[in-house]
């Protein structure tokens, strides 16, 4: 696998694990270069053999025609890939690298990884210390989750509904 293939596979794997469309995880317009941030954290921190194994496992399962959900279930259940899969999901959601072994203290990958962490969007909030909103917005509920993350089957976020 060359780097382009490896990155594309990483995005597809990440979509299966997180349930967030790859087009949102790694948008074609990517001003903060979040894919580079997250992918580099994965490559730098994961054991190289384990990293190769999880990407190859994904490709093998994908080539069998399994759905994202079936692939993620299989990868998480396999002791050889499950712990690293958990680290990848946490990396996208929280911006931290949690070593799969659980033995070392986790680290924040970077300011960018922290700010772009998906958990803030999942909870319809914003990163602590990074609000792009205006005074008083907190008095009313936020736009629905579907405005940020499309429901199953859709790939383009639908407009807000109240």
């Amino acid at each position, binding site marked *: 696998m060359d780097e382009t293939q490896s990155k594309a596979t990483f995005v597809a794997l990440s979509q299966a694990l997180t349930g967030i469309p790859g087009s949102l995880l790694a948008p074609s317009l990517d001003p903060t270069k979040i894919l580079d941030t997250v992918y580099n954290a994965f490559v730098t921190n994961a054991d190289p053999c384990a990293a190769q194994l999880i990407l190859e496992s994904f490709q093998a399962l994908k080539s069998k025609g399994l759905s994202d959900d079936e692939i993620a279930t299989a990868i*998480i259940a396999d002791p050889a890939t499950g712990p690293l899969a958990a680290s990848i999901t946490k990396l996208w959601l929280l911006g931290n690298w949690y070593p799969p072994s659980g033995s070392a203290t986790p680290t*924040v990958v970077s300011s960018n990884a922290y700010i772009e962490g998906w958990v803030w969007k999942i909870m319809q909030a914003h990163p602590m210390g990074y609000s792009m909103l205006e005074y008083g*917005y907190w*008095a009313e509920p936020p736009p629905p989750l579907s405005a940020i993350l499309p429901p199953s089957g859709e790939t383009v976020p639908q407009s807000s509904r109240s």
Partner: protein
Amino acid sequence: MQTNDSNAAPGADGKIYDVVIVGAGVSGGIIAMELAQQAQRNLQVLILEAGPPIPASRENYLDRYYNAYYKMPESPYPPNPAGSDPGDENVGRATTYDVVFNVTNPDKSYLVQDLSNGQTPFCSTYERVGGGTLWHWLGTSLRLLPGDFELRSKFGHGRDWPISYTVMPPLYARAESEIGVAANVADQTYMAGLYEPKDYEYPMPGVVQSYLDKTLKSTLDNVTLYGQPMDVTPTPAARNTIPYEDRRVCAGNSSCIPICPIQAKYDATVTINKALDTGNVTILYQSVASQVKVDPVSGEVSGIEYLTWKDPHGGATGKGTAVGKFYVLAAHAIETPRLLLLSATAELPNGVANSSDQVGRNLMDHPLYLSWALMPSDKPIYPLRGPISTSGIETLRDTMFRKEWAAFRIEIGNEAWNFPITDPYQTTQDYIDGTNVSQLNPNGLKLHGKALIAQLNGLLIREFRMANLVEQEADPESRVSLSPTHKDRLGLPRPQINYRLSEYTRQGFKKAREVNSAIYKAVGATEYTKTDPTKPTYFEVDGEGFNYYGAGHIMGTTIMGSSKHDSVVDPTSRTWDHDNLYIVGSGTFPATGTGNPTLTIAALAFGTADTLWKRLSD
């Protein structure tokens, strides 16, 4: 202008200042600004600050916060609290990291905490950097209440203040103007007589209440506990609701603690910069006051010795003496008594200003009772949007029940379960790993994909917490002293802490739990408050177990009183023992009261500035 009508020899820089201040925080800043702005006199003020300068931009501090795995009040500020060796730091300080990880290990904790004989840890912290601890404060700017000044005479507990509330309104008004408090007087109806004149207005309109506040308010409007309505009241806050003094309007970044990214929240750098703009104030950074020198004949302070440093771990690189006509110690309630005790000599074996033996004693906080709950699934409240807190319940602060149990206010938190369990981090990990540290994953589900997202969303948007700030009585056995065994990198003994909660405060915790649980029940929320008996903060009252947290409100240790025999400073904040030495900050509070201390600290600093101005004008 060099003044020379003093008998003292000039200091290291050849000058005799009108006033020498120790500590570039809010108190020191206000006094420096007030004196230096008296243009007709051209008064010269020197500030000694132990820590590094105020940075030109807050970006570095903000970046340290983003990149800190443990996002704690001290995370943005040096030295890095995680893994710091307090014996190797020139300028260490108490940290939340120490409270969580090192509290039983004095080799790793800056504060050397004596936990023998049932004593428990002191859990509040501070900063030693230019601008001081207000870098990481929440911004809550409540006035104390009249009864807060009369704890002994009215309720039979602790000590009275030697001043009454009646002297406070004009000082509060000046403090509210300087720090920029947003509030509507009409909302602050829990106590009559707080505002004088009666048509007083805060400098800014009140902060808009959060969706959580409004949701709770709609249910609690009809709930009464201990005879008091559970009014959800907007909290006066030093948080801009309109542009104020060239600072921006709050954008609800939800990181007031530890840092406002846009300085919509006041911090002391605002006032210190105004003081510097006069051209009459000099700040020496990285200059650690190490000894207050007293003239044995006059009994007056003759100078303050300080150590300078360059490398934070490199020890002292030089020393000097700062000389003034008057001296003000404004280094907060742990470092100020430490300095007075460090200043012991053969003539003053108990330290400076300590003929009463009260220096370091009466250490207090608002021990904090933390509770947390989940709203019903059809009533999400969308936390981590807006300031960390926008409302509180203030009606139980000054009732006659204060005779029986320590009073408290309730702070409502718009920050999910970040304080109790670091959410959203913990619950997210639980549902990825199949664990249940959060208590929200009792079946140990290990989710992925859309099911993970749906589950996290469904839980996190319903989380909220309430924190009760419980008052504490002055207790001479709760104290700061000098560690006989542990020093910092400058060779100065670190603070040793002896601390305990009285039965009065413990009874307050019992009521705090009862009240909070009743509120959760009334709003239909499911409570998840958890007590950990293995933590050093565990205590019991009437067989019921509790943990407490620090509120960040360090008080006592140089208390104000009406007699030199049992207090350190007089009602003007002048030390009883030394006519030209003043102490400001919450160290002078003889009782904690039921409001967050900063506004009162700032108000009293204005009073002390007035006193100094008068004496300098004589």
